[in-house]
């Protein structure tokens, strides 16, 4: 538990650092991974399928290695 939330935190940091449109980027990641980033919290279970999809989406959309 907590791995997805950690990934979410890194994504938000990258968005802030690069000055990206948060809703646009989060929307793309959400659609590709099949998980709304707003719903990810510390208590979100670490579903390996979702983790894999989100990692792939982050690489493709933001060029971020999670």
């Amino acid at each position: 538990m907590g791995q997805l939330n950690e990934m979410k935190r890194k994504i938000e940091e990258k968005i802030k650092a690069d000055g990206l449109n948060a809703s646009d980027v989060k929307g793309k990641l959400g659609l590709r991974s099949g998980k709304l980033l707003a719903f990810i919290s510390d208590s979100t279970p670490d579903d390996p399928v979702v983790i894999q999809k989100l990692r792939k989406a982050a690489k493709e959309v933001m060029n971020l290695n999670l």
Partner: protein
Amino acid sequence: MTWNSIRTKVVATLAGCLLVGVCGVLAVTQYNFKRDSQVLATESVAGAQRLFAILETREISKMSAVSDSLIANSQISDAFRAQDRNRLLQVSTPLYIDLKRQGITNWMFHTREPGMGVFLRLHNPPKFGDSLNRFFDKEVVRTHVLVSGNELAKAGFALRVIRPFPDSQGQIIGYIELGEELGQFIRTMKQQTGNEYGLLLNKKYMDRQFWADSSKVWKRRDNWDDNPAFVVADKTTESENLMRFDNDLDSLPPEGKVLERFQSGNSVYVRGIFPVRDAAGNTVGAMFVVRDISSFYLAMRHAMKVMVIVTLVALILGMLFVQLLLTRLVFQRLERITAIATRVVGGDYGTEIQVSSDDEVGKFEQLFEQFRCVFVDVLAHVPELQQQAHGGDSR
């Protein structure tokens, strides 16, 4: 642009239409040219045949009128009745010189049947006494009225009239014959139509040696071996290629025949041929007609270029217009919906989709906006729903 996008497919379809359109224009123009050149060739053959018939009729009429006045000439009549060849030659020669200028190159007097020999040839006085025994001679003897038509002699083709020569009491004392070389007709025809003509003679009715001898006399090339079935007696063009014909003259239909189109250098010709029959109905020769359709061909090529350019421009403009229309009416609006849907998923719940039109995409925009509202409402009530779910579980 990806290969499976609607935009690519539309562009590919329109490009296909462009190709088909240009090919269609080329095919239609080519078909029109072939059809029109065929019509021109047919019309040239029919026109030449009509003109030839008119000239024949006119010349027969002329020779008939001339023979009337010759028969009425008392000096000629007296000399012929007296069978005085020298006197007849003497009184006729000045008239023959005049008639020759009018195209009447043959003038003969024949004795009465049964022998019906040549009494005098004005065009060849030393030769006389022979019997020709032609269709003409038999016909005039049988009918005792004027007989006219074409006659292929050993070395040439002539239009002739032959009629009884009566004395003042109406008794037939012999026959008078006038003739014109058919070769001169083609020059008149060329003057009137601008087409090129050639007169072909069927070898079957000719004498090889006589043709060789007459070629020497007339200082023309002996062209007997040029073609297997016919000789070119006369032509209005220097070109040998234009008069090419490989079939048998006897096989020609009465209305003539259009031959293949012919290209020589920058010129394009249509060609045709029609039979020329003698008085007995034999196909003793043929008239070759060549019409230069270069100006028509160039006009067709120009029209084809213009049509291709116009078609290309119209289709390219059409392609651009369809592309612009699709981009504005469909693609841009779909991209806008995609961007808003993405932002909503990303947490920007307040971005509304504006319904820009009442068309198909507009209906989709409307549906998507309704879906967004439901989605936002669901998200707003997630805690409440979770609570209800937990409450349900505890019960």
